[in-house]
């Protein structure tokens, strides 16, 4: 076997595949799955360390379609963050990957989304955002833009919930937006999210070809192609690798994560410092007002302290502790009972 067939931990790409997708052909979610397979392979994630968590929706079905040998948890509608939180607390060695939809996150699950961010649970949180409810056949979701229209021609009258905007406001320590069709951008962003310690929010526009890919939709392939606006061209460099990417000084931002990995963000048209939360909010608002879809890494706090760290949890998984480590000792118990409990 030549080195080109395997990743840094010696696994072939096939290991990262899952069952065949049962989603519609051309669904953006399928592309995201493929990019995830690439990112997990390149990153060298050990399958047994991966916990694939999801809610309910077409998007939430996708964990079945990659890394078949990993554990998956297809939870309830809008309730992925709580299950992911529990899993991480039980075993902090797991790489927790949460997959959700825009209905799952921005409507029924908005509360759990917000509180996962607030606690900064170490989790890569992907929203496969198609502006509609795919699985229940095309109703508007809360991320649909005002003025966009449904397949039946109905206009959305209500304000959009901008997942990145909300995440920034809530204090998320990693906020990025991407597009299912842009693997070049998405794969390095995913890998950066794996390296980030804390909740990494990735809002990925992912067209629903069946219910929301028409004219008048702002989450269609055509609309994103026309109005997409990328901040940078990212490159991910794992901690173990040498930085060989060429870039001119000042023309890129180098973000280093605690595990020694880097994302090199080659600047495109615009100046934006990804460690500036306020700047991220500003540019998000500005581009939205112009009708553009801003993509790229918007914000990152590389000094982020996740929940397990703040709660002074031991480095070993809680799930592995036995009775001798967890019970009150006999002498302490006797003393406690003697003191009246």
């Amino acid at each position, binding site marked *: 076997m030549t080195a080109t067939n395997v990743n840094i931990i010696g696994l072939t790409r096939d290991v990262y595949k899952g069952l065949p997708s049962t989603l519609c052909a051309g669904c953006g979610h399928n592309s995201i799955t493929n990019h995830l397979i690439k990112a997990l392979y390149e990153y060298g994630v*050990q*399958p*047994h*360390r991966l*916990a694939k*968590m999801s809610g309910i929706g077409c998007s939430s079905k996708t*964990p*079945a379609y990659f890394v078949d*040998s*990993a*554990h*998956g*948890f*297809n*939870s*309830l509608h809008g*309730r992925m*963050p*709580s*299950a*992911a*939180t*529990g*899993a*991480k*607390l*039980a*075993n902090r*060695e*797991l790489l927790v990957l949460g997959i959700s939809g825009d209905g799952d996150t921005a409507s029924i699950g908005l*509360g*759990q989304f*917000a*509180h996962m961010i607030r*606690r900064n649970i170490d989790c890569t949180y992907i929203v496969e955002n198609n502006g509609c409810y795919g699985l229940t056949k095309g109703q508007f979701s809360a991320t649909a833009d005002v003025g966009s229209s449904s397949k039946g021609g109905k206009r959305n009258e209500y304000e959009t919930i901008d997942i990145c905007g909300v995440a920034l406001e809530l204090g998320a320590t990693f906020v990025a937006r991407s597009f299912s069709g842009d693997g070049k951008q998405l794969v390095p962003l995913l890998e950066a999210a794996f390296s980030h310690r804390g909740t990494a929010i990735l809002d990925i526009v992912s067209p629903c070809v069946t219910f929301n890919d028409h004219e008048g939709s702002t989450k269609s392939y055509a609309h994103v192609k026309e109005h997409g606006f990328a901040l940078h061209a990212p490159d991910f460099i794992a901690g173990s690798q040498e930085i060989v990417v060429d870039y001119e000084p000042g023309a890129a931002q180098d973000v280093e994560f605690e595990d020694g990995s880097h994302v090199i963000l080659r600047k495109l048209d615009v100046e934006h410092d990804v460690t500036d939360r306020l700047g991220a909010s500003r540019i998000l608002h500005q581009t939205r007002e112009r009708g553009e879809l801003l993509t790229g890494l918007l914000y990152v706090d590389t000094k982020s302290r996740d*929940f*397990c760290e703040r*709660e*002074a*949890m*031991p*480095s070993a*998984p*809680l*799930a*592995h*502790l*036995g*009775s001798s*480590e*967890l*019970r*009150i000792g*006999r002498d*302490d*118990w006797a003393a406690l*009972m*003697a003191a*009246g*409990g």
Partner: protein
Amino acid sequence: MAQEAIVNDFTLRVATVNGSGSQSSNLVLATAIFRLGIAVAPKNVFPSNIEGLPTWFDVRVTPQGYQCRSREIDVLVALNPATWQSDLASVRPGGVIVHESAYPMTTLRDDLTFYAVPFGELAKSHFDAGPLRKYLVNMVYVGVVAELLGIPIESIEAAVRGQFSKKPAAAEKNMVAVHVGVEYARANLRKHDPYRLEAVAGGTDGLMFMDGNRSAALGCVMAGCTVAAWYPITPSSSLCENFIALCDRYRVDPQTGKRKAAIVQAEDELAAIGMVFGATWAGARAMTSTSGPGISLMAEYVGFGYYAELPGVIFDVQRVGPSTGLPTRTMQGDVAFAYTLSHGDTKHIVLLPATVGEAYAFAMQAFDLADRFQTPVFVLSDLDLGMNPWMTPPLPYPERDFDRGKVLNAHDLAQLESWGRYRDVDGDAIPYRTLPGTDHPNAGYFTRGTGHDEAAHYSEDAATFARNLDRLVRKHDAARAAVPQPIVDEAGHAVGLIAYGTTHHAIVEARDRLNDAGIPTDYLRVCALPFAPEVQAFVERHERVYVVEQNRDGQLHTLLRSELATHAIERLRSIRHYNGVPIDARAIIDPLVDAERAAVTA
């Protein structure tokens, strides 16, 4: 007229205003009496309010050591002007009232003994103005009551020192206030009522006070629970708060400062239960504690846990529903709901502790059962058990290690050609599971609440679905023998009683009195759902069986009617109590005597 003394057999009620700090004085009184070797049953009846609404604290003493409430109040300390008239009316003829002398004496009853004490003035003349004064007034009544009932000052002092063990200066101040009360009583009150306390040598030796939330929290620690997720709600909050305190004290590594627990105050109960299942799926022991409103919110996830077969322990410290109901009053109102919580066909294991010791033991057992049967397990306590102090022997150290159930590790998997997450290999309806993080290519599987086959693959196949549901019901049936078994006290009488949880304590007294009245009874206490086979057998051995419980609709009675054989259910009768205060013996005796009379005449 020389009255015969009534020794160690009465109920003392203190009526005060919430937020006045009377709780510590009441506990001092209860503890001081307990230290005399006299069995006490303290019950706090408090409002859903931080300050200003009426609150009552009963200390009941009986020679038999009954632990239930009595509706008859013998001695009242009246310190709430707002409820003065109704409190006055609540005392039984021949009773005693200690009251603030400034209260209006318009509707004086001539069947009571009154002791007027100028509490307000005593406080003014003895204590500096300031926030402490209102607390010290409470200690003045402790002194007055001690003098009137004959509680030695040493016993009060020991209780005060115990109460303020971390604040010796406060103990001093409080003792000064106690003395003010004692001296006032000595100088101004002439004892002319029959109620007295007399020390009982060794009467409470080997016992201590504890509430059920504390003992349940201790059970969680000893069961190796490492993940707790909760959302504050009375009367369950102190369970998780105790768990936090215990983990802070006993689970922190002195070298590293790391705490071997993860505790999350969740955003709501939907999240709390989700965290529990996420954690147990990943191999930790996890719990949440809540009350009725939280249980309602957890319904969807509990069904998921049942169907995806995830362990998880849920403490429901029941309070009065429906809806927000009476948030600080007690009820056994969630039994039927918890048992089948969630949509579709679901049935859960529900443990029903009656004592502080059982709250501890059942808490531990709940984690073993959850792991063994891979299913959510409820521990249904209630406000009375969870929040009131009860006399209890010290809790025993667990002698058995955890039962983590059927978990395959990497080594096990290496021996197997294949395995299926939901395959019934052993014929006991319990499949094997693996934990995330298990380093074997076959370890992973997909957990879902959607239809799945034996290999955990998505399936909408009709036969597969029905087969799985049938296995789940077999698993539930298998739990009948594994849950805490009913406790039976039987001597071949025609009348049987069935009760569970804190109703037990009223049953104990009711049976004594019924026996005296010529209606001897047998008794079975249900300790868990699903019902053990013994329940049906007990009913069959009796002509009439009264199911006594603290809810309006006779929830356990209904469950029995739906699960027992037809010839057995005809023997069942229902006795219910549902006004928010803990059940007393008369709530059982009165309807039962009527029913028995009717049955015998018929």
